[in-house]
């Protein structure tokens, strides 16, 4: 399933709801475009909701890392919310589980930015 991305405001935090696959090609490109667009709008507190993302390949992982670094380089924060089991396992074996701030509850995640 192609990746879809929408975003909403939760106070100063921008929650990006993603659904589908983040893979080489359109999926990775859309994630990149979305994060870069938010940074251009000076939205630097970004919470990626991955609850409906059931598949990420190495290209998608690379794009998550690229987004994390891009936001951090602009003194912002990018965090992850509600990982599916497959995505959680991927981030664990690649040791990125320790790099990203990851939450299972949206309110807790939003409060962590404040």
């Amino acid at each position: 399933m192609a990746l879809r991305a929408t975003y909403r405001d939760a106070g100063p935090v921008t929650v990006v709801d993603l659904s589908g696959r983040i893979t080489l090609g359109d999926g990775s490109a859309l994630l990149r475009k979305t994060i870069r667009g938010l940074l251009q709008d000076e939205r630097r507190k970004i919470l990626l909701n991955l609850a409906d993302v059931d598949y990420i390949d190495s290209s998608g992982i690379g794009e998550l890392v690229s987004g994390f670094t891009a936001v951090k380089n602009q003194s912002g924060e990018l965090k992850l919310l509600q990982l599916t089991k497959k995505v959680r396992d991927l981030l664990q074996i690649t040791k990125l589980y320790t790099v990203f701030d990851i939450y299972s509850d949206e309110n807790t995640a939003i409060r962590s930015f404040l």
Partner: protein
Amino acid sequence: MTASAKHLEITLETQVESVNLAEEMCLRVAEAAGFGEDDCYRIGMSVREGVINAFHYGNQERPEKKIYLAVDITSEKLIIHVLDEGTGFTLADVPDPLAEENLLSTSGRGIFLMRAFMDEFDVITGRTGGAEIVMSKKLPVPGGNSTNGRGGEETAPKRGA
């Protein structure tokens, strides 16, 4: 594509769409061979990463080059070959994506994932002179009723070598 009971091969164009095509084809073969959902996911992901490697690193995204995918099923295992038309590489030269200095790298995790998800993995020099990824997974135990088709083996991915 030629097909027999135990051998499939296909020549792929060097384009992004080939990655999905290869994954879908191998998923169908793995399902038909009796692999469970978790193992099918791992096999599909490994094929995907192998073809991404051939597309991007081997063939340098040059459309005049081809990617050769072959799948064999023996009495014991499913074997996948992904061959490109690049100049080849040595596994020992591939940086460790788990090293502290590479954790925030935006690439270089494909080989690691294939190693983690398959039972056997190697890279040899293929007939084209390019890299040929050879990877395999043991066939599921007949009559096994686990979700991954491996007789109750845990479902979490194992770490790479």
